[in-house]
């Protein structure tokens, strides 16, 4: 159920260099870590078929590896062409070294 928290990764497995991949109700999500804080969005670009976890994280912006579309990982909002549909974004909490996420309404 999307209104429940789902564990997606161990904190130790999420690096600041590279987003990690998790699964919520069959949806692939990307988990990011910036300055010790965790964020999560859908992992699939809204423009084409690309995984954002293969992209480049620059501050709070994730750049799609295919056409360099940009999204803000804090809220999933589009932040640079050619994307124009926002990503689903997730609330994140850490419980006992486990990252848990919940789809944001």
């Amino acid at each position, binding site marked *: 159920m999307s209104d429940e928290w789902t564990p997606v990764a161990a904190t130790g497995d999420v690096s600041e*260099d590279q987003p990690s991949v998790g699964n919520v109700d069959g949806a692939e999500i990307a988990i990011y870590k910036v300055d010790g804080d965790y964020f999560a969005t859908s992992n699939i670009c809204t423009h084409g078929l690309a995984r954002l976890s*293969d*992209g*480049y994280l620059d501050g709070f912006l994730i*750049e799609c*590896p*295919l056409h360099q579309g940009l999204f803000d990982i804090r809220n999933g909002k589009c932040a640079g062409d*050619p994307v124009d549909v926002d990503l689903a974004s997730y609330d994140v909490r850490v419980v006992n070294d486990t990252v848990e996420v919940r789809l944001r309404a």
Partner: protein
Amino acid sequence: MTAMLIIGAGEAGIAAAGALREAGHVGRVLVVGEEPHHPYARPPLSKAVLTEDACPVEHIRSAEWLEERGIELWLGACVESVDAAAHSAEIVRGAERCVVPYDKLLIATGAAPRHLPSLDPLGGLVTYLRNWEEAIALRSRLARAQSVVIVGGGVIGLEVASSAIKLGCTVTVIEPAPRLMARALAAGTSEMLLDLHRTAGVYVRLGVGLASAKLVDGYAELTLDDGDRIDADLVVAAIGVVPNDLLASRLGCAVDQGILVDANCATSVADVFAAGDVARLVHPLADEPIRVEAWQHARRHGAHAARAMLGDTSPYAEIPWFWTDQHGVNIQVAGLPGLADSHVERGATTLHLQGDRLIAATTIDNGRDIRPATKMIAAGWSGPVAALTDPSIPLARLAQAPIPA
């Protein structure tokens, strides 16, 4: 109030219109486009549009987006001539003909496929690929074709080859140069690409040109320079593009394989600018003016031209970037690998240097390296090759480090 006229409703023209509004321009913005369709992206035309049933058209900007910004769009309208002294353009729109005054003019007329006269005897068996109609026609012909010959081993030809194989056709690519995508890629990447195509089942004939073509019983019979013959029921001509610079040339702009522009997109004629595929620009990475035929450049160059039309004098220095998708592999190139004299391989990324200066990067299914590499190229990274070779140091970290002296 100043009136801005933009000729060409492609990536460069639409990006310019948007950037004019973003920069606060309140006067008229009119974009005139010859094609009847709402402005669309071309990259899918050689990819998903060919392989997927009813792949939807990808609009550059929606009609509402343009409307909200007060951008006028005339479609199916052709600018026939420009009187630079009078600051006016003559436009044909259906049966109508009118004269539109402007204060500043942007020419963003793009490019057209280079015509290959030796294929003319084949009539309707030959297809070129630049616009939506051509892509739709090619799609339905590929669905019926058995043997497809693609003349030209450049990016468009190879993407079509990749799509045609996927559809089950027998595919031959003829390229007179000794390697694939020779203008755009370093030799090592061309080799990898050749491998990729041959493994996928594409017959690639390198270093041999087309001698002649004739129609025999409804089939195309192609004869190569070495005497070999290939039969085909569909021939795709993809031997590069020529810039649509005739209009500019007639109005007095200096033109040499594209409209010559300075770092502010200005042509040699006052108040006339050019951007995108049609423009040949000065660029900090190259000694000679270059033409960049790539989607992102067209958008950025168009937007830059718009700001220049409003008086901004900062020079254009964006690092050229393109991607291509072939047989499920994504190749990206930042910078100008053709000017490099040495290459450093870091796994799926190759860095290209001119002397000790980083001038380009190529990634194979590794797009995440492009952005840090682009930053390094733009910052003029130069230094010992040894600093780049350790693949355990992410490029992103190298890009943040100060440039070694």
